[in-house]
């Protein structure tokens, strides 16, 4: 756990980057610092490993005041990932990753072996080991940066806008990868970004900072989207927050309706209404409308209207439920179970009613 106690950073020119910050970062969770430029988010992060030293206040990592330990020793115990990765251009990928173990005095063979393991963990092909950073793409370099930070298995990971320099598609896959890694490793991660979407996607908790280095709100992302404390946070969280907030509400209460289905190869059903076509294992294949049914005798895969997104019972959010309903050509969202078999129908009305119920439950008293 990391704790800020009344931490202030004043630079020699008088600017206050961080102003009396009190904050607790939960162990084993991802905490995101987000805010506009000049809000002190990077300064706050860099104070944790003493890349910048606080002017006032105390920072505790696992109960120890960071100012009590040697700066280099402290940093070797904290993973550090920066924008553009900051890889050492003169070292091969495997030696870049082995940096901290070697600093800690591991022998070369053991350090390289660990580095090779990490390449696999972060999804780098083994043949990259002997390449140099300039031969890798931005996304690959960032993976190496993460691997380097993890090499000595530190409990804490600091990530300073690590994905902001890569293109959106690669960024998204790196974010997913980070979440996957985190579910396996359970590190205490402090992540800095200026991108609120990235913050709510990655953060177990999000700290919104305002210019001048004051903490505006510190909450779970769902709460942040549903109940911003003031206009600043509301503005910063941005458009569509209502809709995006649905992503953080679970939806056990959505009632499932009847869904008319027909299996491929069966006789085409009579009538005008939309029918969902499924395969032998009841997995949805597409829809049959009145138009597609004209002159059709047996149901085949080639005359179907493509279905919308699917809502998975148990793990899906209200957002995915609503999206399933809205994107289905028939207006009935398709709910599936964990195996992907059709479980029932959901309507947008039902989702909104479930949302009402959830809101009543969560209303702060």
């Amino acid at each position: 756990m990391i704790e800020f106690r009344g931490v202030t950073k004043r630079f020699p020119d008088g600017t206050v980057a961080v102003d009396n910050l009190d904050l607790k970062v939960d162990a084993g969770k991802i905490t995101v610092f987000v805010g506009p430029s000049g809000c002190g988010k990077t300064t706050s992060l860099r104070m944790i490993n003493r890349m910048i030293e606080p002017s006032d206040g105390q920072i505790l990592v696992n109960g120890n005041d960071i100012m009590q330990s040697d700066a280099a020793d402290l940093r070797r115990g904290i993973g550090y990932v920066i924008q553009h990765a900051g890889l050492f251009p003169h070292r091969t990928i495997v030696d870049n990753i082995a940096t901290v173990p070697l600093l800690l005095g591991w022998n070369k063979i053991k350090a390289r072996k660990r580095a090779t393991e990490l390449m696999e963990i972060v999804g780098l092909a083994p043949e990259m080991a002997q390449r140099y950073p300039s031969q890798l793409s931005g996304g690959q370099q960032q993976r190496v940066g993460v691997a380097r930070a993890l090499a000595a298995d530190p409990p804490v990971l600091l990530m300073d806008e690590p994905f902001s320099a890569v293109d959106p598609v690669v960024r998204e896959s790196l974010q997913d990868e980070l979440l996957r890694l985190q579910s396996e490793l359970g590190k205490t991660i402090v992540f800095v970004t200026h991108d609120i979407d990235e913050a709510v996607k990655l953060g177990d908790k999000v700290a919104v900072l305002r210019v001048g280095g004051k903490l505006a709100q510190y909450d779970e992302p769902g709460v942040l989207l549903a109940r911003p404390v003031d206009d600043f946070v509301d503005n910063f969280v941005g458009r569509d927050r209502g809709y995006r907030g649905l992503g953080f509400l679970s939806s056990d209460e959505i009632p499932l309706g009847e869904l008319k289905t027909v299996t491929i190869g069966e006789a085409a059903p009579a009538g005008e209404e939309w029918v969902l076509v499924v395969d032998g294992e009841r997995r949805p294949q597409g829809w049959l409308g009145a138009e597609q049914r004209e002159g059709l005798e047996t149901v085949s895969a080639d005359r179907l209207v493509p279905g919308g997104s699917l809502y998975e019972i148990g793990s899906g959010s209200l957002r995915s439920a609503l999206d399933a309903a809205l994107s289905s050509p028939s207006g009935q969202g398709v709910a599936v179970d964990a195996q992907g078999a059709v479980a029932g129908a959901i309507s947008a009305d039902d989702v909104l009613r479930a949302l009402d119920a959830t809101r009543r439950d969560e209303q702060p008293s």
Partner: protein
Amino acid sequence: MNILNQLVSWFADPAHWSGSGGVPIRLLEHLYYSGLALLIGLVVALPIGLAVGHTGKGSFLIVGLANGLRALPELGVLILLVLFMGIGLIPVVIALSILAIPPLLAGAYAGIRNVDPAVVDAARGVGMREQQVLFKVELPNALPLILGGLRSAALQVIATAAVASFVSFGGFGRYIFDGLRIRDYPQMAAGALLVAALALAVEGVLALVQRSVVSPGLRASGGARRSPTADVASTPEPAQPDDPSPAPELAGVKR
């Protein structure tokens, strides 16, 4: 007989290849003065260049020193030193090392300053101590420019070391000054040619040294191979110039 033929016959004369005045001995003398001057230049310039480059403090010193030393007339310095210190190897080597210091200093300083700040930040961030940052990260990345400075210094020192003979020392300059005295122009031409050939040869050797000690990761092209499947399209700009010119220029240093 034209000068070219005379030059050829000068080199063909076996008498010029043996004894204390022969080419091999003169070569060793020339290399000895030059090597000593470069060594002193390195001892003086490298620590200052590395320290100022690493800390960023005292850049004015580099600029002032490099400019000031470059402005000194070599022959004048040598004569002045000889007047003060008497004829000896020391004034010769000092005069030559004054020539070596500016490019060495500029190379070391610019080399360290040019290392990508994000790389240096990362080095500290992973827990390197200041010395480790300098020697494990900054220095290896600065090597192309440092060696560029060394090549430039070697070229100048070897080309100028002929002045040692002006104050009665050996080296290839002997042929030039002796030839001048007795109006033996082929001998002068031979001396000049030998100086130029040696300078180029040493430059070639140092270029090979540079190839072998600089990490392949710092060469954008050649050396390390690129995989055809690697996604290199989005590779960010290389942090280092791919083939640094032998004479690193310093911002603010005017010749």
